[in-house]
């Protein structure tokens, strides 16, 4: 059926697909719900999915040659953001941050979940760049 459009050569309506937009949206939605409602698994999973899909979509559309650097940058951002959230409750001193690890304060835990998402994405970025030789997105 789709030859019909390539025949006209005008509309180029074929081959226009990408699996990333769905997951960018889903990652953002799940991550947002997880962070605000303090459901940490959703927060981490959603943000990791979001970071991965953004890296994927940037690569696919040619803005990045390989996804790993974008993934690493985003993970850095998450780590920092999460730490800022934690610092709002603990101050920036290392010892208080460390003792906050045992905290049950939901704001602190939300902060750590964002940081956690950053750490997971960072690991994924490292693993990805060392495993794939071509560096092409999965």
């Amino acid at each position, binding site marked *: 059926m789709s030859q019909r459009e390539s025949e006209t050569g005008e509309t*180029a*309506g*074929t081959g226009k697909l*990408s699996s990333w937009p769905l997951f960018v*949206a889903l990652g*953002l*939605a799940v991550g947002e719900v997880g962070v605000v*409602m303090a459901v940490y698994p959703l927060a981490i999973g959603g943000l*990791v999915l979001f970071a991965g899909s953004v890296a994927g979509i940037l690569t696919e559309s040619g803005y990045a040659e390989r996804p790993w650097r974008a993934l690493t940058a985003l993970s850095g951002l998450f780590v920092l953001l999460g730490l800022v959230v934690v610092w709002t409750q603990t101050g920036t001193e290392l010892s208080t941050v460390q003792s906050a690890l045992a905290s049950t304060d939901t704001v602190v835990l939300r902060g750590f979940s964002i940081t956690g998402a950053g750490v997971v994405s960072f690991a994924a970025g490292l693993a990805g760049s060392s495993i794939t030789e071509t560096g092409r997105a999965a």
Partner: protein
Amino acid sequence: MAGEQLALTVLMGVFLVGVVSLVSRMENLRAYAPLTSGDAGYGDSAATGHKPSGLLRWLTTVDHKDIGILYGVYATVAFVWGGLAVMLMRVELTTPALDVLGSTGVYNGLLTSHGITMLFLFGTPIIAAFSNYFIPLLIGADDMAFPRINGIAFWLLPPAALLIWAGFFLDPLTGGTVEAAQTSWVMYAPLSAEQANQGVDLMLLGLHLSGISATLGAINFIVTIFTERSPDVNWANLDIFSWTILTQSALILFAFPLLGSAIIMLLLDRNFQTAFFAVNGGSPILWQHLFWFFGHPEVYILVLPPMGLVSWILPKFSGRKLFGYKFVIYSTLAIGVLSFGVWAHHMFSTGIDPRIRASFMAVSLAIAIPSAVKTFNWIATMWNGNIRLTAPMLFCIGFVANFVIGGITGVFLAAIPIDLVLHDTYYVVGHFHWIVMGMIAFAAFGAIYYWFPIVTGKMYQKRLAKMHFWLSEIGVVITFFAMLLLGYLGMPRRYATYEFNGLIAPLSQVTTLHQVATLGAFIILFAQIIWVFNLVQSYLEGPVVETEDPWDLKETGQYSREFEWFAEQLDSTDDDAPALAADGRGEPSDD
């Protein structure tokens, strides 16, 4: 608790693995397609790939036409949800006492869901359906400037709807600890800040996502209209629908991020002990200012593109060009600018400074002028024209008529002394329903009928479409006139019951008018059932459109670009497969 979290973590892990495997499958599918550089390069030459079939195609498409169809289906589902919610409310209101719904809380939940669903999940998406499908065709672009961002904007909406409706689903599951939000669509503090119900948080998150979606879409349209026009389309001959979408996108760009920020502030107030909208903090009036600074532009975000649709379609069946094309555009731009200077007309009775109030009254009255310019231009277009009363045209005429009443009641409300009497009565509800139902929905119906042949390759049942129009118009008049009268009698809005004593309002007349409004609502419901039936039946079995000019536009020299595109589609196919099916769907044609 820890067990739940663990289970969720495992589920999340399984889900992510699923995503990775699905994505790698997709990548194999498209592995032979060249990797183009830059988003805009999509349409270039990659016309070698196949669209996958079935569900996978719809989940992965970034084709503007497919995304337009997705928006349309999504908006229709939302319309059904919002419509059923309001039918329950209308049934409850046939008697003064609480006889049907069991609790006022249920009524409040339905009210909130109806308003938010219709404005954010039906109104904006149904407009996006037309703009996605047709703007690229009308301006001669291959696709939107950023096809993938287009996909993201759409896919944010289904999660948004699930979150906005979540309270209803979670209520039975959680034994009533999480229930539907009861904040009304304006979410006024302190009520919205203090309702402990988590359904409110979920709704706010959903709204936030829908705002991100609208903003992404707006950026995409602005860039598309500025940079993707074909060389022969310039600002002087850019079609009127694209002009209204351009203006709408600018309004979205200024209004929606503000709503998003206000929602975040409200979420912080609710969950993190901030005091933006607390009585002893930033004050509840701050919420009203922020909300209406977004909220009034939002009503024009919703009405300008329908005005563009009518300005586009109405001349086709009047046999004449749009009267005063330039002035219709100027009035669009004027409304766009003025709409940011009227928000406090929603707050006349809150005790704000009377001098500020008066200036908002002046600007609100002024905005009626460009609105009236449009009305007179539409009437002048039809004047002495060769009018053909097809279903799209009927909806356009109904649109203009309903705007006269909806607009003028708005002008009344913009006068402070009148508003102090009518504020928070059914008069306000009547006013904006003449506009949102009588105009926005009507323009959408008209445009759906007008472009039905292009999108589906089939023709709808004309007689059913006309029945749809007449029943809708009659229903609108009955329902919303009754509401205006209820307002004059002093019936307050947002009440599930009205067992007040006769000193407040004459109870028997109020009851009768409520029953009349409910009757009208059932007529509207019946009309929409005909509409859905007609669309589905005609899409499946309707007669195939073989002419490239199903509306005989060539006779009056009004044959336009989107039908030229349709003609190319017809030419390039040797069978009679409808456009939608042929567009990669892989369905066999009817033979």
